[in-house]
């Protein structure tokens, strides 16, 4: 069956990144140089072709964009300066928008006003919650909280409410992500082609999802291993932090200051260290613009980095002020922390950059499902 070209799709795709992909004349150097491109899952050239031709279904059923970790070798060796690396990045943004059924992701990627607007709205809601909602429920900044030189953070921000809120937020975000992953599964495995994947293959290959999430071995295949290290530190720090503040908040956030060797503090310090290293590499990289992978920065890249940095810095400040018994400074830092953290989680995780934490390992899982796909029985007419 033949597919109708959709030239307009190309113009849409152009909004998700910067690249003159039309300049590509299909020599295939990019595919040859890519350490991650493999038989059956060849990229970037083939993906550039789909993009140039505007073949919507073929693009949406691709796993390849998620198999690329943007080392930049393709862009460096491209004889036509067509920037294949950035195309793969843009396709990831496009696919994120496609998987998202709410349509918000597309708005965020293609409109700065929408993205900034939503961030500001969520930030304002957090501030209102702290300054209006909580006091109206009786949680005022009374003398008790500042007395005795101690910092009573779990009373200032009532831990049961915060925990409920954290769980709610986690469930909303997870719900969005899971529904998007189901759509991704539908597009890549279910709908695509005349093949099916048996249930046994689904079970047998499931370990890849966990393994790739935890270790990111594909990233390690890129030429420059330093980025794998910094990315892994960032990812593990973030994951640890996310788990402890959502699942183990009462254990993690205690009013009593525990000794420095306590796992609570060690885990916190490790996560902070990982995040700082990862952020430092990413931010300085994007500022120096020496490596191709950092050469082109989308608004969403910078917004995410800025928000995560602010979150980490305010988190560190909370810790310092709390240990040193400075209640007001702690509370102000806490409000700031939450003002940045909440919009970051709500926008970045399901709709934007951060969603790749789910899409990448799932794409690798789906890639392996595709590998073992068998032809569907066709009815002979």
């Amino acid at each position, binding site marked *: 069956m*033949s597919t109708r070209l959709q030239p307009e799709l190309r113009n849409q795709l152009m909004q998700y990144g910067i690249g003159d992909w039309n300049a590509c004349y299909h020599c295939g150097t990019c595919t040859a140089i890519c350490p991650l491109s493999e038989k059956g899952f060849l990229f970037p050239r083939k993906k550039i072709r789909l993009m140039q*031709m505007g073949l919507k279904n073929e693009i949406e059923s691709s796993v390849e964009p998620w198999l690329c970790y943007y080392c930049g070798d393709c862009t460096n060796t491209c004889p036509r300066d067509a920037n294949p690396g950035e195309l793969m990045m843009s396709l990831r943004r496009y696919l994120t928008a496609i998987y998202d059924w709410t349509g918000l992701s597309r708005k965020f990627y293609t409109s700065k006003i929408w993205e900034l607007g939503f961030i500001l709205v969520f930030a304002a809601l957090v501030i209102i919650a702290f300054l209006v909602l909580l006091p109206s429920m009786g949680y005022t900044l009374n003398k008790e909280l500042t007395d005795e030189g101690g910092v009573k953070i779990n009373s200032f921000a009532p831990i049961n409410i915060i925990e409920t809120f954290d769980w709610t937020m986690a469930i909303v975000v997870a719900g969005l992500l899971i529904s998007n992953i189901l759509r991704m599964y539908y597009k890549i495995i279910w709908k695509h082609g005349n093949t099916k994947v048996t249930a046994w293959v689904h079970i047998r290959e499931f370990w890849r999802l966990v393994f790739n999430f935890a270790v990111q071995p594909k990233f390690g295949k890129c030429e420059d291993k330093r980025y794998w290290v910094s990315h892994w530190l960032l990812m593990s720090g973030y994951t640890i932090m996310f788990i402890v503040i959502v699942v183990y908040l009462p254990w993690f956030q205690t009013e009593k200051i525990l000794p420095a060797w306590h796992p609570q503090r060690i885990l916190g310090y490790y996560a902070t260290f990982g995040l700082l290293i990862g952020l430092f590499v990413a931010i300085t990289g994007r500022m120096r613009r020496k490596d191709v992978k950092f050469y082109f920065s989308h608004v969403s890249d910078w917004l995410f980095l800025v928000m995560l940095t602010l979150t980490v810095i305010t988190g560190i400040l909370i810790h310092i002020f709390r240990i040193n018994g400075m209640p007001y400074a702690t509370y102000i830092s806490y409000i700031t922390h939450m003002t940045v953290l909440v919009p970051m989680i709500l926008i970045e995780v399901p709709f934007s950059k951060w969603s790749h934490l789910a899409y990448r390992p799932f794409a690798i899982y789906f890639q392996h499902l595709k590998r073992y796909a068998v032809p569907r029985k066709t009815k002979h007419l």
Partner: protein
Amino acid sequence: MEEPRIGVYVCWCGTNIAKMVDVEAVTNEVKTLPNVVLAKNYKYMCSDPGQDLIIKDIKLQNLNRVVVAACSPRIHELTFRTACEKAGINPYLFEMANIREQDSWVHTDRTEATNKAIDLVIAAIRRVRYHEPLQKRSVNVNPATLIIGGGISGMIAALEIANAGKQVYLIEKSDHLGGQVLKFDLTFPHLSSAQQMIRPIIQRVMSNPKISVFLDTEIIEVSGYIGNFKTLITVNGNNPVELAFGNIIAAVGLKPFDPSVIKEYNYKEFPDVITSFEFEEKLLAGKILTVYGKEPRNIAIIHCVGSRNKNYHEYCSRVCCMAALKYVHQIRAALPFANIFEIYADMRAYGKGHEEFYALTTHKQNIFLMYDQQKQLPVIHQADRSDDCNMIIEMNELLSGQSIEVPVDMVILMVNMEAHENVKQVVRAIGVSLCGNQFFIEKHPKLDPVATTTGGVFIVGTCQGPKDIPDSVAQARAAAARILATVAQGSVPVEVTTAAVNELLCCGCRTCIKVCPYTAISYDEIKKASVVNEVLCKGCGTCGSACPAGAIVSKHFTDFQILSEIEGIMSMSYKTS
């Protein structure tokens, strides 16, 4: 005939020959043969000392025949003939034995190679004994030139010759000069105006007092030979006019291929499927509109229409790829939001500035789609009512491996450039040959691209094969330079080793006339014998071998000469076997 006194010289060619052939043995072997006065070997016979050796020996030893065993006569025959001439003997009393290309380079056994060299040298010695002195001849050249075709090549050649003060007769079949270039809007790769380029040239040609332009003109016949041609032409169908001239330039150009034979494209069925030449008309008119008077939203440009396809023409038309890229720029300028599909088989961008032009064009938001010329051409069909386009092109896209449908409102077919049907008439008149694609054949594809095997007849521009404007102009100027050189000399040397008819033996069967590829033989009704025009004859020897009466002698290739050569080749074989 005086007693032959032969000098034999065996060349080492550095180590090229000496490595595989024992040159000393060859020298000694032939030294004692009858008529051989001396035999020598030397490192490089073609060098000045080598030539001096021959000249000195001719003078001192009173030699009257020379044999040099060295490389191919194509390389150094002229060198040694000139040396003989310097020493005062006729250059045709020389013979060369090729013991390099035909011996040392192709053998691995030194003894056998040496024996073969001896055979070849003996053959040359036997042959040279029967060589006869031949006299160089030349004919006077009429300084006027006839140019057939008033396109850019013909006009440039005309101006070049006229500017040197020589008369040009420029004849053109249509009622105006300018040829195909006059039909173009812009040229590639600089997107400069074709009109602004060609119109002043037409003006200069029309106003040049040394150029006589004949429009609406047909050639009836051309007769004569290099330096002395005559033609009969009719202007506007009126009484024939006779012109006399010394050289001819054929610049008859070509014509666009008619794509209606390609079923897949439905040309003429669908009014918005047009050829590149028809699209140029739209561009010149200043508006790109469909037959419905609308600006097309989707335009496809299909490459290689009738080119590089066994069913139509196998050759590449060379200019269509760049012309198609040119259209992208022109369409983009006129219709900034149109979708432009460049449907190509291979992109050929070999010329100066062409690859850069290709790269530049890729930034014009057009879509390149590749099809497999050998498997399946794209198919154009009518769109459904529900579609928002006029036509759909169905194709297998090679670079994605997808079969796709391209929505289009206008299709431009980049048609092949093919020879005129009436080219054969010109060919018969001026006596040149055509290749399988009906293009004129040049004398040598690399070293003599504007001359033909007929002396005084030159071919320029696209009648020799599809080419772009710069190449056509270069050829035109090259041919003009060649002609002006002979005109400046006032005469041209003609072939010496021609055929000659022994009228007493000729039975008048006229077999020779039929086989002569140069139309050099005619029949004399009074003498009842064939007559060779020695100016037209190239000495190919076809008539000599075809003559049943043995009446035709090919000078320098007489029966005696060839038979002695064969005897020479065989003589040593008798000895060794």
